[in-house]
């Protein structure tokens, strides 16, 4: 389980400003212990972030109702991302999509290969509470789209945090059944990993955390290299 030992990576305002200035295209804020601890995301920091960011950002963590999502969107976020609450109550996706539009509704999926195939996990923010949801990932991807998800972030748990590359095979399998924007997550450690996700798995975006937080790879450097390889990015 690569999700153990989450690191505290410093003040979010400092990081948000740094990534904005480095040319990040979008930021995602995960309050990963919100769902396992049964609380909603604190919205005062969302307002503070919205004041300084001039790029889109998405907030994830413990959003369990239309009212939770509304508070986050009113505070200035573009999108909300739901994961464990969607697995617990799939109708939440329909309700959010009807109220705010599909473009606001991101569904995050923590996926792992099991002997039965790719399976979705929940409460992955807490290693003690992480559990198999019983759902087949490829079926879940189709269901969340039918319910009105506007974007899917596929976090491949087996490769997350170890920086050995995205799980291209799994991303390709999901891409086959995903008609909305697909974001690769989990495993980025080098420029080539990003290039492979775009080139070989045809994802619409690539998400990474530790490789940027640790300073191993700069966003500007990464985007210049991808652009040089003919992958269209904003530089």
């Amino acid at each position: 389980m690569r999700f153990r030992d989450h690191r505290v990576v410093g003040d979010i305002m400092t990081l948000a400003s740094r990534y904005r200035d480095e040319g990040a295209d979008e930021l995602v804020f995960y309050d990963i212990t919100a769902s396992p601890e049964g609380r909603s995301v604190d919205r005062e920091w969302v307002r503070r972030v919205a004041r300084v960011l001039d790029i889109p950002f998405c907030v994830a963590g413990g959003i369990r109702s239309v009212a939770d999502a509304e508070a986050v969107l009113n505070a200035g976020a573009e999108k909300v991302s739901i994961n464990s609450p969607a697995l617990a109550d799939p109708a939440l996706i329909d309700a959010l999509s009807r109220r705010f539009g599909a473009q606001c509704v991101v569904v995050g999926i923590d996926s792992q290969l099991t002997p039965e195939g790719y399976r979705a996990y929940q409460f992955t923010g807490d290693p003690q509470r992480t559990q198999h949801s019983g759902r087949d990932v490829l079926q879940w991807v189709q269901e969340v789209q039918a319910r009105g998800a506007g974007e899917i972030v596929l976090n491949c748990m087996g490769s997350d945090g170890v920086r050995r590359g995205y799980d291209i095979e799994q991303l390709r399998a999901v891409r086959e059944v995903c008609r909305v924007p697909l974001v690769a997550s989990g495993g980025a450690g080098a420029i080539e990993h990003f290039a492979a996700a775009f080139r070989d798995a045809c994802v619409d975006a690539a998400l990474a955390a530790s490789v940027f937080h640790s300073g191993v790879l700069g966003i500007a450097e990464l985007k210049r290299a991808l652009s040089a390889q003919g992958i269209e990015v904003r530089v």
Partner: protein
Amino acid sequence: MSGTIIIDSGGANLASLQFAFERLGESVRVSADAGEIASAERIVLPGVGSAADAMQRLQRSGLAAQLATLTQPVLGICLGMQLLFEHSAEGDAPCLGIIPGTVRRLEARTARPVPHMGWNRLGALRPDPLLAGLAPEAYFYFVHSYAVAVGPPTLASVEYGESLSAVVRHNNFWGVQFHPERSASSGARLLQNFLTL
């Protein structure tokens, strides 16, 4: 005349737009008051929710009829731009009818998923004070499932499997399909231009 007003059509998510103007040193007010709107120097019509819901709210508050009579610069953003046209396929909704044309659903294609979300460059910029100083390679952030085809009001287009209107103008009504408040420095420049119209 008093400043810039963002029309409150009863939905969520006006904070990011307000903050974008604040970063430019412009304090804007959010209002649904007909008197305040009539006397504002500039009006922003944001997009919230679906076309049918937004039109229903504008009709109920009486703002739908007032909007067409405005003579000061008006900027529609995303759904707000689409509402300026005659009709939207989203919920089969009659819109404000200020700009000739209709809004239709984007078709998902290979490598072109819908919603269209992401940063794109504009093409075929026509000279206009709203676009002053913007390089053709400037990127803007798009998030939409519906769009207006390129036509006479189009000032700039965007390629997404086909050519779509990214910026439109009809007299004192401008509209942008992208979100300038989330389009980094190019978006800030466009909003700054709007404040000088």
